[in-house]
């Protein structure tokens, strides 16, 4: 057998070890029909892709369109595959990598927002402190008794993480987060 092999390091190969994973936000426009979400998440689990956050709701009622926002992590090559594999799903209309689009538009990244409901129970000084901090974070009180508050807070994921961390010692009972909603800046649609 001839020995002139191993001329690798060539640019044509997928060099998995040299590519670093990045986090990105995908917007997926789909027909709102039974099973469509199962198709999308089944693709992620079946092909071993990550889902860090998932948000879905009908956005255009007359056309029965839903918008799914997925935060995922992978090498650029894998992210490319994810996008193409999503596009193969029959009820999928469009897939846009919002992070890549933001790069193309010369922006730092898409706008990402999350809403959380945070229940805190307690008495005395803890209770006052929780209320003061909620005010500082622009969280709204949506429900309260003399023993608890439910705060509604909106913002970047990192802001909500921080708010939750602060509430922990003040009597945090439960948290519900919506996952990321995202959109690119500027006048153009997805």
């Amino acid at each position: 057998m001839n020995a002139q092999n191993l001329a690798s390091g060539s640019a044509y190969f997928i060099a998995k070890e040299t590519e670093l994973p990045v986090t990105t936000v995908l917007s997926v426009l789909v027909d709102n029909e039974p099973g469509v979400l199962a198709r999308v998440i089944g693709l992620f689990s079946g092909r071993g892709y990550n889902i860090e956050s998932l948000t879905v709701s009908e956005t255009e009622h007359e056309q029965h369109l839903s918008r799914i926002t997925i935060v995922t992590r992978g090498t650029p090559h894998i992210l490319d595959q994810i996008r193409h594999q999503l596009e193969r799903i029959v009820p999928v209309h469009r897939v846009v990598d919002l992070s890549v689009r933001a790069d193309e538009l010369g922006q730092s990244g898409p706008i990402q927002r999350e809403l959380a409901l945070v229940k805190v129970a307690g008495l005395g000084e803890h209770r006052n402190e929780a209320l003061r901090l909620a005010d500082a974070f622009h969280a709204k009180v949506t429900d309260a008794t003399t023993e608890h508050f439910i705060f509604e807070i909106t913002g970047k994921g990192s802001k909500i993480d921080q708010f939750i961390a602060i509430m922990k010692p003040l009597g945090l009972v439960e948290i519900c987060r919506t996952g990321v909603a995202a959109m690119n800046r500027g006048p153009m649609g997805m």
Partner: protein
Amino acid sequence: MKADKQDSDSRPSQRREMTGAEMVVQALIDQGVTDIFGYPGGAVLPIYDELFQQDKINHILVRHEQGAGHAAEGYARSTGKVGVMLVTSGPGATNAVTPLQDALMDSIPLVCISGQVPTSLIGSDAFQECDTVGITRPCTKHNWLVKDVNDLARVLHEAFHVAKTGRPGPVLVDVPKDVQFATGMYTPPEVSPRTSYHPKIQGDIEAIKQAVALMLTAKRPVIYSGGGVINSGNEASKLLRELVELTNFPITSTLMGLGAYPASGKNWLGMLGMHGTYEANMTMHDCDVMLNIGARFDDRITGRISGFSPNSKKIHIDIDPSSINKAVRVDVPVIGDVAHVLEDMIRLLRASSTKPDEKAIDQWWSQIDRWRSRKSLSYTRNKDVIMPQYALERLYALTKDRDTYITTEVGQHQMWAAQFYHFEKPNRWMTSGGLGTMGYGLPAALGVQIAHPDSLVIDIAGDASVQMTMQEMSAAVQYEAPIKIFILNNQYMGMVRQWQQLLHGNRLSHSYTEALPDFVKLAEAYGGHGIRCEKPGDLDDAIQEMIDVKKPVLFDCRVANLANCFPMIPSGKAHNEMLLPDEATDDAVANAIDAKGRQLV
């Protein structure tokens, strides 16, 4: 029983009221379907009742739903039409999973209609209930559960559209029993399909121009074609031949693409990949421009990715954008249907003032001829024992001038068939490439024979594979489908045994079949014809007998038990690190794969 009688007696019907079961049959007729493969059961009885009362659709009763699926695949692959299977709920649907995944991986257009328990019982663990759309979601291109009879006609037409367009594949329509009984409005096939599904057919002309420019600079080119050429239709094969003629490029093909370019063509290198020829793999390794037409850089093709054709620029034509850059990074992707892209490509090549570099390509050919002279498919004949390669050489010699279709099971015999049976036309070779389904070949042969009643249909089989779907012999006898099951019987799961020899210290764990049935008696028990052949000298007469018998035949061809399939790229190795038959001593075989390669297989 004819595949081509459609159109004449099947004019699309008008909108009118009918039951769901009637709609199923009407939609099949409107889609030009003439033959379906199926098995009745509680949840599809209304549809079977409608089938009973009509004569436009010919129903083939199989003996197991897996057989229905593979038969429909063989039917589809050999005709270019959509294959149709009809199964009941629960076990009927779960038995359909293997052929659905098989069709998905090999891009075979297949429509599966399954019965379901009544909508009011869905989710209640009713008798013969299963979550059919859930189970088949990952093994279909798309699937539907129809809960309203007024959606049924539209969904059925959409199912056919999705199955046959773009990258073809299997689809499933699940029809609850109450929907089959309900009355609603039938709508004929529509021209406007759903808005979210529009596969790209025409290639981007700028990309094609770039591809042509690259091809014209090539000094060591190669064309690597695949199943996409077959799926694109006869026109694509014609254009492929024209392209080879025009450029004098050497051409190799994947397992799935055999027949698109004729094996007798002067530019043919044989199949490439793990058990491909030395010349095909070396040409791929050393080329400077690679033109991939409708293939997908499967791991059985590429060998070790980092050593795959390291110095070439790569052009990739594929209808599925997710195939581009999936396994191998390419320089010029062209997304579109093979026939459409090749048409543009040939037009641009003809119009170009530059021509392919004839002198360099001639030199390239003399290098290729040196590789060819290694005769990598050679084997040692034996006058007492039938060598499997010899059996296939004789089978080819005695059947090549007939109107022959070949199917296979999966294993050594499949690779030998690919190496030693030569195909001149597309759609003549039906094999399970992607999924590697043992038991595919016998029911696939049944499907092919139903589509081509007067042709010679041979399943080249192994003694282990063939037992997985043997029951379809009964269907073949019932429908007088004279399929020929040519079993290369070595009493082993030969490919498993070969791997155990290579990887596991020759410990032949459970790969020997101690209690094989008497295939001759088995054939007779089914009402077919059995032949046994043990000596090379008797082979020609026995094959002739097989051809002449107008019944399904089980041919028990006793071959050398321990023959290995060579040449071979051991896993973890590159194209230029092949194990050739003349180098494959026991020692070389035992040490061919290092510890790292063992993990890959």
